[in-house]
């Protein structure tokens, strides 16, 4: 019971409060790791196409860099945007080290499909399994900038400001990127002759 209450206490803390606590007590950093490891691992796998083991290595680097740079975090942006930014940069660094082009391995869920389809204002019903299969391939064919921004927007459910902070680009550029990504996706879709 006590242990549960102890854990509950931390789960109720905001990210910013956890950061302050972690700076005073190293063990508190564990709660930041627990809060973000699943999300970030999925994010790394989605945008990089690395295996789970490679993704975990990257995730480890991400948390170590997060800890080392914890004093640089301030409230000018959300902690989640900040840690996603570190993750994004670490994935890019890994690609450079491996000299590999990012491949996309997508395990799509219904929410993502619904979000994307609804945003593209299509209204035909389709075979969901067929859709899942083809949209995964289509997203895999998009360039990495477009793919990542669609994943951040429709999968990670980040708003424009958060994406701006993660990618360190102006909001106008983010809006343009998303617009172009959707257009690019639509063009690929038409090539596949899939009607949403």
């Amino acid at each position, binding site marked *: 019971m006590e242990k549960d209450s102890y854990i509950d206490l931390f789960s109720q803390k905001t990210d910013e409060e956890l950061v302050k606590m972690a*700076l005073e007590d*190293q*063990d508190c*950093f*564990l709660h930041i*790791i*627990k809060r973000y*490891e*699943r999300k970030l691992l999925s994010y790394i796998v989605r945008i990089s196409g690395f295996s789970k083991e490679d993704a*975990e290595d990257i*995730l*480890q680097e991400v*948390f*170590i860099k997060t*800890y*080392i*740079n*914890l*004093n*640089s975090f*301030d409230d*000018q942006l959300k902690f989640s945007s900040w840690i996603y930014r570190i993750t994004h940069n670490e994935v890019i660094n890994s690609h450079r080290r491996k000299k590999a082009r990012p491949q996309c391995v997508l395990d799509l869920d219904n929410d993502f499909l619904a979000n994307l389809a609804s945003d593209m204002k299509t209204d035909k019903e389709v075979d969901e399994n067929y859709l899942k299969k083809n949209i995964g391939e289509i997203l895999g064919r998009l360039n990495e900038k477009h793919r990542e921004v669609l994943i951040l927007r429709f999968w990670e459910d980040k708003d424009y400001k958060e994406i*701006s902070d993660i990618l*360190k*680009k*102006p*909001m*106008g*550029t983010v809006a343009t990127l998303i617009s172009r990504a959707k257009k690019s996706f639509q063009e690929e879709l038409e090539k596949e002759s899939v009607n949403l």
Partner: protein
Amino acid sequence: MEKDLSASILEEIRGKKIQPKSRWRFILREYVVWLVFFVNIFFGSLSVAVVLYLVGVSDWGLYHMLGNNPLGLVLVTLPYFWLLAFLIFLLVAYYYYEHTKTGYRYGFIKIVLLNILLSFVLGAGLYAIGAGEQAEIEFARRAPFYKDMKVRQNQIWNRPEEGIILGVIKEVDIENGQFFLKDLSGGSWLVEASGAKMHGGVTIERNFDVKVFGERQEEQIFIAKDIFPFMDKVDFSPRSVIIEIVPKHDFSGS
């Protein structure tokens, strides 16, 4: 997975005695970035001040006297060096601004336009207090390549065959209404000035720079029709010139 991963991360942090970098490092970094940004804005503004000074001392009204294609000649004499310097400082300032904590939020065009506005406002202020003139003179003094470049650029005002010479007055002969001039290329001239019109409050005095329009008569003799001051304060003369002050002479007869 989660237990192993989070535990292994903490183990690594403890094992390698990893500590967060101190806050002061990040604060200092941010200050340095801003400092470099403002230094570049300052020097960009100084470049603007020099451009304003050079545009101010250019004899725009005299270009029509240069004969063919005065516009082409105007383009040749624009202060490209300082315009290029301004562009470089502007781009470096942009780079450093973009690397501040929130600089990425504003986009290239907004940042550059803001920097241009800032540089022009500050540059106008620096020009007003004479910093543009001083910077130009000092730079020419310390950078021989720049002085050489200015000499080449000003050769458009030194074409004796076409009736223009630019140079520094070396000796004045009041009695005969003439003076000796050393032109930009180092050539020596005896200038007959008794019939010349004086413009722009020109001073016929040793070590003053003048532009003389007229006609080349013989080898090294020039009949002046119009004499103008050369406003650029850069010292084009070699360093070994001995300066001697002689009384002013008003050749206009007033």
